[in-house]
């Protein structure tokens, strides 16, 4: 090889390398080149300068500077300035517990015909056990007055208890107890000035403990989100963005953005660039429709796959969540008394008042097409008891442009149904005639269904049901998002149940693969035998 030829070869190699490098820069921006993904850039803009400010200092508010003797009195004080608050709030689902704004439509909602497979029914607000979470004073439900402090107070003081103490103490005239009453009153006075936008604790008091305890219901909402780290929730992490719930669940006239029963949180996903007054409830609101880096194949997924599907690899990552609730086992006694049996995670696996449970932690979601709406089987809908009844299930399929493949927690269980009317039943649980007192399911059902005004035949049995919760909280940092091969793999793909679409790596055509590989094997066999032939005939050459 002459030096000149060598030089030319070098030049050629350099040219080719340079070509590939320039190409690389143009098409494949890597993390190293410091370019930020559009979705992150936009989201950072959207939450810039998040510090809230106010024109009121509640410690100086005249209306609050007095001794209160009841919760209702405090509400009166709030409303003396915030004149429209009650009118607004009375129209919201947080107050009515009905999904529809129209009060005559009581089909969907805790106060309506809706049921689940946990404590089953709210019995039209007659089951007082449920009302602990209603935003009214003293479990009075919609007949009572709004308890503003439930969502807007950060003192942590138990006002109900405090007022109970005042009432008890003020009856005797002992100067020492009088002193105590004064102290409590002072405490209340101090506490009510701690007015706040709803904190994670305020919302969490009900939403983390839905279904009767920490983490029972949702799987992606439990007390671990009160002070999460960013590994658990990249948005809420106190070592990260430190978002409160209201950062995304934005509010218009006390209506808080979010999914309710059958209705999606939003009809269409819109970014704040498309509509600056859109609620920040969807990922798209802040992160846009093309959140990943320019060149990223991931952006090609967003028309089919929800953000949550990849960015929430597992739910219940810190606290366990309930996965199974079997009412058929309820009512067993030990020594004539109801009992509780604890199992893994220190969580009850049996309660006489509720039945058998199963808890799980670090759960892989199940995936379904979802356009944000859910079907809801109420206590007034006809069911087919021969099948597993889907009490709540996502709506959508691949032909629906709003539908995405979305992660869900499916809570399974067995609950009573009417053998004659073929409807799910709504047993009353708390109170004198409730199952938790009487352990008489038939009577609890009779009483419970009466509260809803739905007739009960008198004959019940149990049916297996499922209840679907969209998994949307506990978004992991991007480095913990799913690997491609969680779905793009032949065996055990996370999306094994999503059929009717071609997933590279998961799908193949057996016929085409067979034809193709046969042709390759045929070629190999052909050249092998041809080669053998040439070897033994020595290409026809003698010697």
């Amino acid at each position, binding site marked *: 090889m002459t030096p000149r030829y060598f030089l030319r070869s070098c030049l*050629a190699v350099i040219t*080719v390398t340079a070509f*590939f490098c320039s*190409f*690389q820069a143009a*098409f*494949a921006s890597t993390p190293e080149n410091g370019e930020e993904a559009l979705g992150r850039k936009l989201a950072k803009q959207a939450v810039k300068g998040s510090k809230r400010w106010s024109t009121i200092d509640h410690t100086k508010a005249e209306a609050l500077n007095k001794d209160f003797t009841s919760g209702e009195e405090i509400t009166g004080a709030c409303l003396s300035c915030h004149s429209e608050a009650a009118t607004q709030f009375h129209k919201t689902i947080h107050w009515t517990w009905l999904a529809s704004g129209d009060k005559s439509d009581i089909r969907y909602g805790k106060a309506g015909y809706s049921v689940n497979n946990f404590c089953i029914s709210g019995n039209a607000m007659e089951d007082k056990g449920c009302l602990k979470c209603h935003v009214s004073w003293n479990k009075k439900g919609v007949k009572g007055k709004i308890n503003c402090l439930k969502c807007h107070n950060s003192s942590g003081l138990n006002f109900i208890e405090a007022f109970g103490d005042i009432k008890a103490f003020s009856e005797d005239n002992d100067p020492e107890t009088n002193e105590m009453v004064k102290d409590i009153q002072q405490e209340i006075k101090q506490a009510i000035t701690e007015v706040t936008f709803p904190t994670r604790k305020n919302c969490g008091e009900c939403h983390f403990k839905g279904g009767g305890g920490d983490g029972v219901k949702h799987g992606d909402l439990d007390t671990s989100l009160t002070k999460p780290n960013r590994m658990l929730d990249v948005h809420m992490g106190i070592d990260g963005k430190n978002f409160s719930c209201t950062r995304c669940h934005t509010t218009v006239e006390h209506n808080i953005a979010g999914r309710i029963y059958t209705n999606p949180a939003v009809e269409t996903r819109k970014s704040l660039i498309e509509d600056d007054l859109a609620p920040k409830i969807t990922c798209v609101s802040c992160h846009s429709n093309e959140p990943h880096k320019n060149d990223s*194949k991931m952006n*090609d997924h967003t*028309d089919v796959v929800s953000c949550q599907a990849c960015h929430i690899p597992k739910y219940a990552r810190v606290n366990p969540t309930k996965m199974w609730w079997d009412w058929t086992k309820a009512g067993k006694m030990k020594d004539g008394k109801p009992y509780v049996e604890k199992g893994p995670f220190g969580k009850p696996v049996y309660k006489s008042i509720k039945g058998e449970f199963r808890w799980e932690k670090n759960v892989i979601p199940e995936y379904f097409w979802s356009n944000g709406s859910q079907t809801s089987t109420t206590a007034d809908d006809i069911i087919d008891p021969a099948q597993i009844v889907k009490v709540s299930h996502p709506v959508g399929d691949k032909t629906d442009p709003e539908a995405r493949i979305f992660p869900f927690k499916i809570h399974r269980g067995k609950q009573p149904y009417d053998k004659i009317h073929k409807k799910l039943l709504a047993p009353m649980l708390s109170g004198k005639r409730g199952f938790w007192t009487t352990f008489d399911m038939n009577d609890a059902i009779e009483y419970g269904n009466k509260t809803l005004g739905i007739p009960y035949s008198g004959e019940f049995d149990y049916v297996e049901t499922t209840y679907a919760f969209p998994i949307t909280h506990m978004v992991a940092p991007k480095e913990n998002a799913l*690997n*491609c*091969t969680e779905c*793009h*793999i*032949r065996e055990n793909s996370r999306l094994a149940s999503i059929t009717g*679409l*071609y997933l*590279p*790596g*998961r*799908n*193949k*055509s057996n016929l*085409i*693969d067979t*034809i*193709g*590989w046969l*042709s*390759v094997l*045929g*070629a*190999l066999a*052909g*050249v092998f035998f*041809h*080669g053998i*032939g*040439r070897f033994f*005939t020595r*290409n*026809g*050459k*003698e010697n």
Partner: protein
Amino acid sequence: MKDKKIIKIYLYTRYERFWHWLQAFMIICLVVTGLEIHGTYKLFGFQTAVNIHNFVGLSWLILFAFFVFWLFTTGEWKQYIPTTKKLFSVILYYSWGIFQGRPHPIQKSKGAKHNPLQRLAYLGISAMLLPAQMVTGLLYYLYNYMPGILPLSVLAVIHTLIALFILNFLVIHLYMTTTGHSLFSHISGMITGWEEIYETTEIADWETKATRKN
């Protein structure tokens, strides 16, 4: 034939050789990563395989345009015009004569680099399989931007089938390189540009090694 002397002629120009090996490299790259994406095995990891496949695929597409340009400006496209003349004798040679030590019925020359069988095979590859693979690959890559052309399942299945046919070609092509005067003479021809042929073939003065060196 024993009396015939073997000489070398300069048959493949620098660009041709460069293109041949670059394309070989790219095709092998694409087959290896493509089969991983297809789910046949695990090698680079799915995401890396996809990135390599997309990058090399797009590079190939652009570079192929240069090749087509070269093909038509140099008139080399004529090398691919199919012919049935002597086609049968070539087939007969590879299926029979080669074992008998018979001479190849066709001698390569500057104006006819490919024998009739090669012409047919390369025409099929270069004019049909490769462009079809590029088109389906590009449509696959741009699937999100041009909805409704073909369902992904159809696109992917065609892309897979052609890939396996190209792999089939690769196997036979590699084997056929060993059928020259010696096992590696064809390969060395494609590396250096100088192909071995028998002296009887008419070669113009300007084509010989001696003149070229000046």
